[in-house]
């Protein structure tokens, strides 16, 4: 079983790794690149904890092979803050207590950011449906939805 050399850009940095072709992008991010912010909750694309964007498209990194990352641009939770400055979504999640255990949080933040880039003024229903693929078992979603709506509002005001 030979490994395949992959060159890709993660959070703006060009990186290289050797991937077993059976490894998912999530495996490669976590085990080869040390980016453990993306989580595996299911391995079947049903929980969203591994959400990343690839060339700007929101995906579950457990449903993409590492070898498919060749030449792509990948954004993960580790690239969301700008240095010490948190993204408004990150800040609002803390302020609204929108996390309890925090395990689903990176995936939800990445997914919510993708939503607000596409739709800066979503309704509550739009937020709920967009995030339907991100399971949270602790919060009942209430404070998550409020945090996303509040961040959207702030970002619209700031723009």
């Amino acid at each position, binding site marked *: *079983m030979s490994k*395949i050399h992959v060159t890709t850009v993660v959070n703006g940095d060009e990186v290289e790794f050797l991937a077993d*072709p*059976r490894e*998912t992008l999530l495996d490669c991010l976590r085990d080869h690149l040390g980016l453990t912010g993306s989580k595996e909750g299911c*391995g*079947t*694309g*049903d929980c*969203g904890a591994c*959400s990343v964007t*690839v060339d700007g*498209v*929101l*995906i*579950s990194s*457990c*449903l*993409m*092979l590492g*070898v*498919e990352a060749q030449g792509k641009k990948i954004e993960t939770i580790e690239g969301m803050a700008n240095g010490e400055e948190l993204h408004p979504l990150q800040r609002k999640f803390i302020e609204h207590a929108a996390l309890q255990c925090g395990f689903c949080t990176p995936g939800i933040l990445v*997914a919510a950011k*993708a*939503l607000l880039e596409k739709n800066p003024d979503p309704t509550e229903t739009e937020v709920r*449906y*967009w*995030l*339907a*693929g*991100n399971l949270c078992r602790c919060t009942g979603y209430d404070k998550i939805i409020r945090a996303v709506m509040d961040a959207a509002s702030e970002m619209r005001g700031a723009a």
Partner: protein
Amino acid sequence: MDFHTPSSFEDASKLAAEATGLTRFLAGGTDVLVQMRSGTVLPDNLIDLKHIPGAQDITRTPDGGWRIGIAVSGARLGDHAELVADWPGVVEGMELVGSTQVQGRATLVGNLCNGSPAADSVPGLVAAQASVEITGLTGVRTVPVEDIPAGPGKTTLQPGDVISGILLPPRGENGGDAYQRFTPRTEMDIAVAGCAISLRVDGDTITEARVAVGAVAPTVRLVPDAADALIGSTLDDAAIDALVVAVRAACNPIDDKRGTAEFRTDVAGVLAKRVAQIAYGRAKGEAQ
């Protein structure tokens, strides 16, 4: 496992035919990776079709229909305003497959070739009279979508066959289509029953119709009797009643963890009624 990235469908076909052991094609990968992960399918060869020219394109065909590349994701389908205007039912079926994240990867062809009777995008394609272009060892041929599924997890594709495009006919005037499915949750579920209808009207009268049901038989099923119930009607109560009866008569589902046969049959009829009303409204140019 060997990973291949051919640059033409002919090469992909040849690779698949010559490979030893288990071979799988990778379009979006949202089914194959799950199977690999669970150990139910451990391919020896994985052939990634995404890099073949045209695989990512949505193009208008000369006759006014559409050609959809095999690696076009659900998200890109939904973002294509012209396609959505022509075939909203086809697109809404695809958009029900999985989460937003899954939409970023999942494809029509993958959904079709997975062979699930509950595949959400297939009834819409069947109702729309879509076909697939197949590149095989003996050349290229075109086959109606409903001829591809052969039963749960099975297709009629032969070794060396690769689907190289999906073809939608021209929508034409006064047409409309729609798809709905039933799931216990609002999202993230497999259809317990699904129904797609495509129809055309002349004034208030339905002149053409195709009705397809999903998750109520071993394959997605075209129901001509249900179409007959609609054709010539103005979608009055009698036509709807006849539609519901015909759809339920065509159901032959199983009892499983997702629902009983009785429930699936009941709900298929309910969906047919609701979907017919939406498709009719769209055909008449009313608000969707």
